[in-house]
């Protein structure tokens, strides 16, 4: 027993010593950038992380310091404090519990702040666009989120699908992007549902968005000659919730299930072999590729990992003393959408580019060409707006 204790103590001390001896070796990157993440484990999050740590960090000699998986605004604030302690020159945020607080904290500390894969609300942008250390935001705006949902539903309606199921993901938690995607889906159904089609009396985008915010959920029912036959929201991950998902797939006559996100993760097992078409918003990961190959996934609007390249470039420019501001000196607020794949071949083509750690969609060469220090706002905005797969391939040529 005594020997066991000694061995245990020795092992623990060894781990500590190894850690301490690692310290000098890790003092590498010349520029440190903190990254706030509220999702550290999804395939999409891992793909983003791989792009930064496996490609950008090496290409630019930058060290990325990631936060733990954040669950609230206090965690965001603590993480930014940790970044400041680490002398990070900037923070790139994938976390949105309290963006105004993040901007103010970074501004007070004199470090740059940028929003990746998201945008500020119009009111927030008006308030913070002049902040010296606010670099800006590049990502799907709420308009793009809305359009993504709209295009997904329209794709099936145009194919003659009339009976839909819907997975609302974060709608009950008032996750804005999920509400806007869901609203886009319902708006497409209203617009293409024939004469007098409406969702609970709402017949335009604004009213539908308002209705979802008021209800915190979505009701099933007829929308003109279309029908939303089943709806499940939330991420309860308990037996009752999984039961509802299974029940949705088994609903009589259901033809397609359109989801605001996580479609394959939560519904893939139930959809397999059912003949029901599944559409989702996710990213170009191997798991999604397998789902598309096996016929589980029929339509995917996906963020591509390198989509966070331009916001890094803008942040890096700012650190180098050359922030990109518009003609009025305001911070960036640029929209960037998704790549949409509707068959396996298309998916594999996108995925091959997206998963490369040596030749990703946005390489250093491209970023240096279109987003180097000194680039004008107009040129940078034009570069970001060319986000479709074909446009990026053209840029690379």
């Amino acid at each position, binding site marked *: 027993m005594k020997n066991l204790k000694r061995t245990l103590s020795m092992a623990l001390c060894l*781990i500590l010593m190894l850690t301490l001896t690692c310290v000098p070796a890790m003092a590498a990157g010349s520029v440190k950038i903190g990254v706030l993440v509220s999702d550290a484990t999804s395939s999409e999050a891992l793909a983003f992380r791989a792009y930064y740590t496996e490609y950008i960090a090496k290409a630019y000699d930058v060290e990325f310091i990631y936060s733990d998986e954040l669950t609230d*605004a206090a965690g965001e604030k603590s993480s930014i*404090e940790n970044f400041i*302690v680490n002398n990070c020159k900037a923070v790139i945020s994938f976390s949105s519990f309290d963006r105004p607080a993040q901007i103010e904290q970074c501004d007070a500390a004199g470090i740059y702040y940028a929003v990746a894969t998201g945008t500020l609300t119009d009111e927030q942008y008006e308030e913070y666009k002049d902040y010296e250390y606010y670099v800006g935001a590049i990502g799907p705006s709420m308009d793009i989120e809305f359009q993504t949902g709209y295009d997904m539903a329209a794709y099936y309606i145009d194919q003659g699908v009339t009976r839909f199921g819907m997975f609302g993901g974060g709608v009950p938690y008032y996750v804005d992007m999920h509400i806007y995607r869901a609203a886009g889906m319902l708006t497409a159904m209203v617009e293409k549902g024939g004469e007098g089609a409406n969702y609970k009396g709402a017949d335009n985008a604004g009213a539908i968005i308002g209705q979802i915010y008021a209800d915190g959920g979505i009701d099933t029912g007829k929308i003109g000659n279309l029908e939303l036959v089943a709806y499940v929201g939330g991420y309860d991950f308990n037996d009752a919730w999984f039961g509802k998902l299974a029940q949705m797939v088994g609903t009589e006559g259901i033809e397609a299930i359109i989801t605001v996100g996580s479609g394959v993760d939560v519904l893939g097992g139930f959809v397999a072999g059912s003949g029901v078409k599944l559409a989702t918003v996710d990213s170009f990961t191997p798991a999604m590729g397998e789902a598309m190959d096996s016929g589980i996934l029929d339509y995917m609007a996906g963020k591509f990992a390198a989509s966070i390249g331009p916001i890094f470039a803008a942040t890096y420019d700012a650190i180098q003393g050359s922030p990109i501001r518009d003609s009025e000196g305001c911070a960036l607020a640029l929209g960037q959408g998704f790549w949409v794949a509707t068959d396996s071949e298309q998916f594999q083509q996108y995925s091959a580019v997206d998963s490369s750690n040596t030749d990703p969609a946005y390489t250093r060469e491209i970023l240096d060409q279109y987003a180097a220090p000194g680039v004008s706002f107009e040129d940078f905005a034009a570069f970001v707006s060319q986000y479709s797969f074909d446009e990026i391939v053209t840029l690379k040529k």
Partner: protein
Amino acid sequence: MGKQTWKERIPTFASTLGLLVLIAAYYIIGAIRDANVAYGLKAVVNQSVVVALVATGAVFIYTLGSFDISLGAATGVSALLGAMAYNATGSLIVMFLVCIGVAVVIGFINSSLASVFNLPIFVTTVAMMSVLSAFMLILIGWNGAGDTIKVKARDVRPLDNIPFKVSMLVAYIALCWFIFTLLPTGREAKFIGGNPICAKLSGIDEKKLAIIASLISAVGIGLGAFLTIVYAPTLNKDTASSIGMDVIIAIVFGGMPVSGGPRSRILSAVVGAFSMGFLSQIMSMLNLGSGFGQMIKAAIFLLVVFIALGSQRSKLLTR
């Protein structure tokens, strides 16, 4: 009672020694990594003070040999209701009183249920945790402003400073130390934790003490909830959710046995909470990635607790 050798003394001071070693490591690694160590100290206080407050109060419950798993949820509910009260009245004093009041009510319900149904406090807190977590969702729904309840940051910013937080912590620790060390309540609680049957036969009212312990702990929860709002005034369903586990770790890290009894110390909670704070800063400076960092933290935690509890394993009369 012979004079203690240095070997026998080490476990007694292991947790404090652990904190000092962590502070030294923090400065050394900070210097090597070119970190802003002065700002880091502020961060340690900001990130540890809520856990220290809640854990200090919880020492009373742990001393009884009991366990409260609903601390995080109770802090969350108190903070949400405190924020709602502020939004309704615009008064920080009302917010403060609501935070304390709600926590006291929750603590009273916990301990009263335990007394009425003759259940261990742990059991009622398990049920209470579920109820409170659900209640947080209901409160956010009632508020009707998305998935958060917000207080304007500029309204609480004047209080978001180190002197205010440290004064609050010191005052609460002083109060708890006074009750725990100088009043019979502390001795009786240690007696119950050390030997409940013997304590009962000696006429100590376990139920009354459980209620007192819950109420003292509730004040710490209320103060923690208030400072949670001051620190990050945007609250959601996960606000303070990690506090329950952090408190357990802080108390054990501070060298106090989870089984309670005579070895319980008020300062264990503070030592543990700040040790965790420094450890987190060190891991952040090492930038090992959250997975590897967590493993290192676990190893250090095991090492400190192993040494701290070393002297207790061979003793018969204390648990």
